[in-house]
């Protein structure tokens, strides 16, 4: 699913420099990424998603050389093939749960919002246990319910790859395990791959593989 070769990346300003000689994630594989803060884990996810481009090297996702795409092509590829789950859920407080789930379909022409898609969203929400919360707004939900809604949003386009950045970071211990279980269930049922950045070592055994960022060389200003 993911192939990275000789990746070199640095921001325009600052001393941060990321080097990833080689990294891969197989189809259907669930991989955790760990590492110290500031090591570039989120930057790696952004490179894989095509949000930013490396100065050198190649990033391939689902056999597509994403790092060589144009901005527009990368965006279209991203929204159709990659789902994001964020630490802070990133739900819009002015939309209800259903509209949040359907949000990607309203912000790009690459996805078409049909009645079938709406039904799929409802089914997905029912599957994640928030089917009765669809008319509620994020301010009325618990942390766990918010993350479930975020997961629904990520999964609805049936992406091939899910990128989770500290998806359980703001959840209590009881919910963390439950959310990971739900995430794993739905990824497995869709046959998607998962690359999850996490600080939560208790969850690591559930993943197929763990990538330690210390294996990659990152340099930052002291």
């Amino acid at each position: 699913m993911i192939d990275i070769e000789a990746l070199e990346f640095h921001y325009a300003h600052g001393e941060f420099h990321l080097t990833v000689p080689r990294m891969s994630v197989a189809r259907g594989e669930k991989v955790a990424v760990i590492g110290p803060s500031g090591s570039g884990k989120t930057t790696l996810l952004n490179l894989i998603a095509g949000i930013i481009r490396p100065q050198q090297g190649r990033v391939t996702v689902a056999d597509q050389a994403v790092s060589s795409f144009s901005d527009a092509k990368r965006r279209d590829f991203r929204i159709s093939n990659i789902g994001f789950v964020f630490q802070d859920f990133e739900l819009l407080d002015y939309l209800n749960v259903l509209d949040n789930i359907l949000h990607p379909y309203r912000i790009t022409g690459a996805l078409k919002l049909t009645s079938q898609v709406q039904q799929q969203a409802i089914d997905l929400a029912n599957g994640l246990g928030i089917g009765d919360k669809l008319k509620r707004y994020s301010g009325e939900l618990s942390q766990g319910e918010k993350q479930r809604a975020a997961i629904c949003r990520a999964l609805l386009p049936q992406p091939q790859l899910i990128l989770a950045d500290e998806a359980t970071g703001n959840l209590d211990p009881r919910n963390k395990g439950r959310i990971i279980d739900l995430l794993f269930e739905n990824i497995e049922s869709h046959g998607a791959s998962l690359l999850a950045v996490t600080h939560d070592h208790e969850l690591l055994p559930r993943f197929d593989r763990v990538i330690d960022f210390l294996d990659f060389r990152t340099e930052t200003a002291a």
Partner: protein
Amino acid sequence: MINSLYIAWHYLVFNKLRSATLVACITLIAFLPMALQLVLTESEQMLQSRAASTPLLLGARGSALDLVMKSLYFGDEVPGIVSMQAADEITDTGLGYAIPLYLRFQARNKPIVGTNIDYFDFRKLKLAQGRMLAMLGECVIGASVADEYGLLPGDSIVSSPDTLFDLAGVYALKMNITGVLERSHTADDQAVFVDLNTAWVIEGLGHGHEDLSKTRDSSVILKRTEDNITANAKLFQYTEITEENRDGFHFHGDASIYPLTAVIAIPNDTKAATLLRGRYLENQQYRIVRPTEVIEGLLENLFRIKSVIDSVIAIVGLATVLAIILVFALSVRLRQRELTTIFKLGCSRMTAVKLIAAEIVIILSASSIISAGLLSVVLANAETLVRILIFN
């Protein structure tokens, strides 16, 4: 675009206060100058058409504007008084004919116009109901008076005393309504028309009472001589003119000195108009004005004031627009995280522009609809607004 509008709509509804404030600001900035223009255009049309249809106006020396506003639009001004002789003098010149006006009194806050029948032909006023006034004590009312108070021919209306506490002041007279005029969309719609003599009865120059030569109550008689019988204040004076007591109504003194507010002079032709105006150039007591000239002066001033108001509104409008831009800019900053998220999800930077644009479209549309609604209300009531703002 539909989706952008959908998202923008929900954002605006969620932030009701912000949205309402923005809509209110833009509505005010859009509505005010247009409403002002509407009212001014309407007032210009009303003022000019009325003035154009009135060739000349004679009144006491003093403010020409007061004279015109009172005589043509029945405003609250109080110009000086002229006498009935002034009307007779115009007629005697043979240069035209005169329509006297006495406008001192009111009935239920509506101006009483004391004049004669010629006024109705002159102003091309037609009856919608009933008949023209014929006898002392009768009146004909304008369409708005009839509508406002639900009055019909056969009803009555009482003149208002000058002040509540003026015991020696004019008495209220109950007047019988004989007719209701068709709506003319002029000041005449708001008026109660009586014969000049009826207005003078209200003034107290004419009155009716029991025949002193036949009274059984000697206590009302102050003095009796061979030629004259003088009554004291005990003598009851009729407050309503009926068929039974109308014959007893009479006037005292020389009618040529009875008061008028103004005289409309209708010259036979242009030359006659010039001659008439020339006669009063040096007159110390009276003046003749051309209402169109006076109104043009007023309108010039009004539009001058409007220019100033427009400038102020423009500056305030500019400040408001800048404030609105600031609000949107701050809003974008506040929503930076949301915008970053949707960018991460896979939309272009243009999407953010579309979302903001959609909000602006919705706000502008809402403002436009509200402004249009308010303007239509102003348009429907322009005549009333002009009357309240300019004449009263």
